[in-house]
Each structure stands twice: as structure tokens, then as C-alpha cells.
């Protein structure tokens, strides 16, 4: 209970600044707003009309707000279309809190600057170098490339290749853990082939388990291995973040997902569970699942109730758990900001 009191007073880094965690309301923790496959912006067939992009995202965020949603976390990191100035405007005009992420991955979405630097040999970036890049995005602000730094990143994220984490992704995961420890923001990771193994690797950096979210745990292979239970028992957060997806796409369907959630509560692990839809508000240059930000509230909550999940448990899933994990770890914040502040003077 002591922990709860502390985090209730915690602050969250949104694109418009610090917000008390308890004001976040209903949170979707793993979503994407603008998602651009790196390079698509240079392709003549891709329409990057920013007014159209704004309209689409504005409509979807308004729909989410009308369905009772309050906060969205854009978890695609720094190199997949993230447009923090656009997110600021969207947050102001829709009233939805937006938390932007720093981070990179998976390997196939990296670019030459990180994988083949102009050194001989071209050694890919180590964890410390990634951490340096990510920490600055939390402490000094998100980059608008070659223009300025903007509002702070509120979470650090990465993704491993689903067939198994590769070396540079391990560097990314470790760099994320270092970022979490240095700044107090939570670390959100999509596991590769083995969630528990990836989690242990990250914990070996020294980060507390309750600062780590493992995503993708409603994947068929993870459910078969009961990884959600193992990850929650280890003290990390379990993200069942493909609500609305089904076996055709490699995930359990909503009824099974609801049963899994009920079971996690029965085992006393409900306080470690997060749910989200991995929806993309506006995709450029890649295919995506067609799902709205209000799907979870409108379609999935009734399924949860049918599965016997209590209203209070749904509140824990959608409000209390994400608020607790998104609240920046206070001691780290104070320490780092003092250091950064003195450097600026």
C-alpha cells in the first residue's frame, strides 16, 4: 500500500508537460498515433499531407474521448513517424493526454547510423550509446530532427524480432533499462521469442521489475507457455496489448484474452496487467490492423464483464495499473533533473 500512495502522487511526462498520474483517467498504453515506416516519407506514392493526417488522428482521438478514454501512449519510439509537434496540437485540441516514447527497434527498422557507423569495422551501437540518446529525450526533450527539442518522452520502448532477439536488439533492450534507471520512466519492451528470458536479460542491468512492461504476451506462443503468469510473478508488468486481434494474426482472440485476464486476477496478479490494442491511428508505408482507439472500451469491456471480470478489476486494468507504471520514479527524476539543471547554468 505504501507503494501505491507514493505513485499516486507521481507525475507523468506527457507531450504538454508533467501531469499528476491520477489525472490520466483511462489509459491505452500501447498504441501508435502517426506510424511511418522509415523512408516512406521519401516515396512519391506516399501522401504525407499533414492536414489529412491531423484530421484522421483528431477524429480517432475524439472517438476515444467520447467513449470514456483519457490518455494514449504512443509507443513506436523515435524513428517511426513520431511527430511530437503534431501530438501537442492533437492533445490540446482533443483533450486527450498524449505520452510520447523514445526508443528504437526492431532491427529491421533501424538505419545505417545505428547499424553501420562510419568506423572501421562498422560496429553496431552498444547499449550505453543507445541509452545516451534515449536519456536525453526524457531529460532534455524529444527531438524534432535537426530543428529543436520539444516536450519530454514519458516512456522508453523497444521491440525484438519475433523469431528471437538479435544482438543489436539486446543492446537496445539494455539501453532502455539504463534509460529507465537514469530517468525514472517506465521501460516497455515487445519480447522476441521468449519473454521471460528477455526480461531476465533486462533485469540483469539492475532495473526494478516493476519498472518494466513486457508487451505481446497475448501472442499464441506466449500464452501456450503461460509467460504472462511467469512475467507477472517476477514482478514486471504484463501487457496483453493486442485486444481485437485474433489467431489469424498470431494472437489469442478476445474471449480467450478475457479468460486469461480473469485468471490473472484469480491468481492475485491483476495489479501487474495492462491491456491495449496496438492500433495505429494513421499508417504510412505499411499495412496495419484496422482497429479504432475506442474498440477496447466499446467492444472489449463487455467481453471482460461476460468473462466475469469485475468492474473494479476493469478500473484497475484501465486506470490504476497504467497510472502507477507511468508515474516517473521520483528519486531518479529529482537526481537527474538537478544534474541537468546545473549543467545548463
Amino acid at each position, binding site marked *: 500500500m505504501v507503494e501505491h500512495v507514493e505513485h499516486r502522487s507521481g507525475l507523468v511526462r506527457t507531450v504538454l508537460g508533467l501531469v499528476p498520474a491520477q489525472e490520466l483517467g483511462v489509459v491505452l498504453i500501447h498504441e501508435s498515433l502517426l506510424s511511418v515506416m522509415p*523512408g*516512406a516519407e*521519401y516515396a512519391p506514392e506516399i501522401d504525407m499531407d499533414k492536414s489529412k493526417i491531423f484530421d484522421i488522428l483528431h477524429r480517432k482521438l475524439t472517438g476515444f474521448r467520447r467513449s470514456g478514454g483519457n490518455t494514449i501512449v504512443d509507443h513506436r519510439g523515435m524513428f517511426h513517424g513520431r511527430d511530437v509537434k503534431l501530438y501537442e496540437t492533437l492533445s490540446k485540441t482533443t483533450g486527450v493526454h498524449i505520452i510520447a516514447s523514445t526508443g528504437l527497434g526492431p532491427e529491421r527498422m533501424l*538505419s545505417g547510423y545505428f547499424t553501420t557507423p*562510419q568506423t572501421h569495422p562498422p560496429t553496431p551501437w552498444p547499449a550505453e550509446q543507445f541509452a545516451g540518446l534515449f536519456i536525453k529525450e526524457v531529460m532534455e526533450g524529444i527531438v524534432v530532427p535537426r530543428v529543436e527539442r520539444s516536450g519530454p518522452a514519458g516512456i522508453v520502448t523497444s521491440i525484438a524480432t519475433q523469431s528471437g532477439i538479435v544482438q543489436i536488439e539486446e543492446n537496445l533492450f539494455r539501453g532502455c533499462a539504463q534509460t529507465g534507471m537514469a530517468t525514472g520512466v517506465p521501460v516497455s519492451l515487445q519480447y522476441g521469442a521468449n519473454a521471460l528470458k528477455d526480461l531476465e536479460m533486462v533485469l540483469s542491468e539492475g532495473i526494478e521489475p516493476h519498472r518494466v512492461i513486457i508487451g505481446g504476451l497475448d501472442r499464441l506462443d506466449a500464452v501456450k507457455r503461460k509467460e504472462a503468469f511467469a512475467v507477472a510473478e517476477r514482478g514486471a508488468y504484463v501487457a496483453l496489448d493486442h485486444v481485437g486481434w485474433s489467431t489469424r494474426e498470431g494472437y489469442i482472440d478476445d474471449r480467450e484474452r478475457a479468460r486469461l485476464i480473469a485468471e490473472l486476477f484469480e491468481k492475485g496478479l491483476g495489479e501487474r496487467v495492462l491491456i491495449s490494442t496496438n492500433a495505429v491511428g494513421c499508417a504510412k508505408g505499411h499495412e496495419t490492423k484496422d482497429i479504432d482507439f475506442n474498440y477496447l472500451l466499446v467492444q472489449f469491456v463487455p467481453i471482460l464483464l461476460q468473462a466475469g471480470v469485475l468492474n473494479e478489476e476493469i478500473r484497475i486494468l484501465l486506470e490504476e495499473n497504467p497510472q502507477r507504471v507511468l508515474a516517473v520514479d521520483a528519486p531518479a527524476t529529482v537526481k537527474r533533473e538537478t544534474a541537468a539543471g546545473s549543467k545548463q547554468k
Partner: protein
Amino acid sequence: MGKVNTVLGPIASEDLGITAMHEHIGFGLPGCDLDTQWWKKPEEAFDVTIQKLRRFREHDGKTFVDCTGIGNGRDIEYFQVLSRRTGVNIVAVTGFVAGDSALPYFRNKTVEYLTNLFIHEITVGIDGTSAKAGAVKVGVSREGLSELDQRIYRAAARAAVKTGVPIITHLSTEPELAIDIFESEGLPLNRVLMGHADVGQDADEERDKMIASRGGYVGFDTIGYDKEMENAPYWSRPRQDRVKHFLSFLEKGFLERAVISADANCCALGWPGLKGHSVNYLFEEFIPDLRKAGVAEDVFEQLLVRTPANFLTMQEPSLKANPLSNNDIGCVPIIKS
């Protein structure tokens, strides 16, 4: 004689004048813009770039070929302003510096897609502007000529055949494989500049001879990356080694197959660049070195004016080019001994 696409529109080949064939306004590996350690004040970057281009004009330089591919910092509107303000013609390229600097969106594309992309940039415009590319850039990845590199080479060859622009390569590693691709697409080797043949770790006089004998251009186009310079990058080499290498190439009778350029950045984007290096090294250091070695003045006219014009002039497009035939047209030797 013909025309060449510049960022301000096509110009007559006769108007190219002294041309630097492989340069950069600013190059950086994709993603470097996310790292603030490289950010410069735009007014300072503009100032230093203008100074270098103005000095290039003072050396009578008239045309600057920017070999920065898609996603490496190629910035067409900026090039247009620079060209207007300095009077230097700037030729932009389509294509990629190498497969490993192509961004994820392009990595899994087919040869057909890449061909159409390059043709679009040559015939319609780049990044939504009406500025058209004057050449196609291709190159070798750090691990060697990768499968993606080869797809880009093939697409570049098809685009070159269809539009008449030439190809400029980054590195001349694994030349046989590269040449096989060009020739199998019906592109004569005299439409290809095999670049960076002078880099330290990759110098190979037999290879240079093979390329030139088959009609290709050999690029001594990293001139000024001298080991003697402070913080010289890994591809640099002792200054006099490069001079000797180049003189040896001329002595074999390949003057008309030789290209010189500096591969310098006016203002580097994602790396420190080489302090003090610019396109002007050609006039201030390299040509004086050649003079000292007894090279005659008319050689410089060939290197800096006639060869670039021959190479850059757009050929009659062969819109019905058949990629499966005409292997022989790629091999006509154009050597003058």
C-alpha cells in the same frame, strides 16, 4: 551536345564548365538527424556552405554533382537556394549511397519498384519538386556487394537505359559482379563511373585497368582524404600514394576514362567530416601536385570539363530497351591510347 538535369532545370552540356563529379553539400547516414551532437546552427551551415561554393566559383568551378542519395541528407529545396545564390550548377542524384544506407521502406522493394522510383526522380521530380535527378547513385554496402545492393544496381541500370542519365557508384569493390549487372541490362559501361577507386583499403590497379579497358570511368574521387590530415577517416590514404596511383593510371593511356573529385562535404551532417577539406582541394592541392609531377595543362581541361560533359550528357532514351539482349553494346572499348 545535349542536356543535363540540374536542380534549377536542364542546362546545355556546353554550359557545365569545370565540374566536380562526386561531392556532397552534406552527407549523413540515415537516422543521424536524431542525434543532436551533429546539429549545427542553420545560419552557420549555410554560411560555410556558401563560402566553399563561392571559392569553387573563384577557381572557375561551375558545376557541382551532389552524390547524396535518398535519405542521406539530400535536400532539394536547399540545393536550389544554394545554386541560385552562388551561381554554381548543382546536379542532384536519385538512388542510394549503398544498400545499407537505404531506409527500411525501400529495402524489400522489387527491382521494378526501384526502377520506377529512379525514373520518377529523373523524369518527374524529387520530393514533390520539379527538380530532376541528373544521375543515379548506387554503391557497395560495408559487408560487400549485398543482395539489396545488386537489386539497386539492376534498377539503376534499367533507369539509366530508359532515361539516358549515367550511374555513379560508391566504391568499386567486386567490379565484375557490378559490370555483369550493368551489361545484362544493356547499359554500356561508358555510362558508369566506378567511383572511389582511390580509397586506401581498396586500391587495385588491375581492376582500374579492367574497368577502363571495357569503357567504364574510374573515379579518383576521394581526393583529399589524406592520412596526413588530422582525424583522417579510415578510408584515407597517404597523399603521395594517391598521386602515384593516379599518374600510373594516366600513364596507361586512360586519361579519357579518369574522373577526379574530392567527395568532400560542404557541411557534414552525421559525422565530423574532415576539417579543412572541401571540393577546392582539387584546385589548391591535387592539381598543383600533378603539375609538379609534370602533367600538362590540357590534361586538366579533359579531367574537369570534357570528361564530365561527355559522361553527364543525357543519352537518347531507349524506351524499348530489352534487358535480355544486346550484351555486346556494353563492351565497346572506347580507349584512346
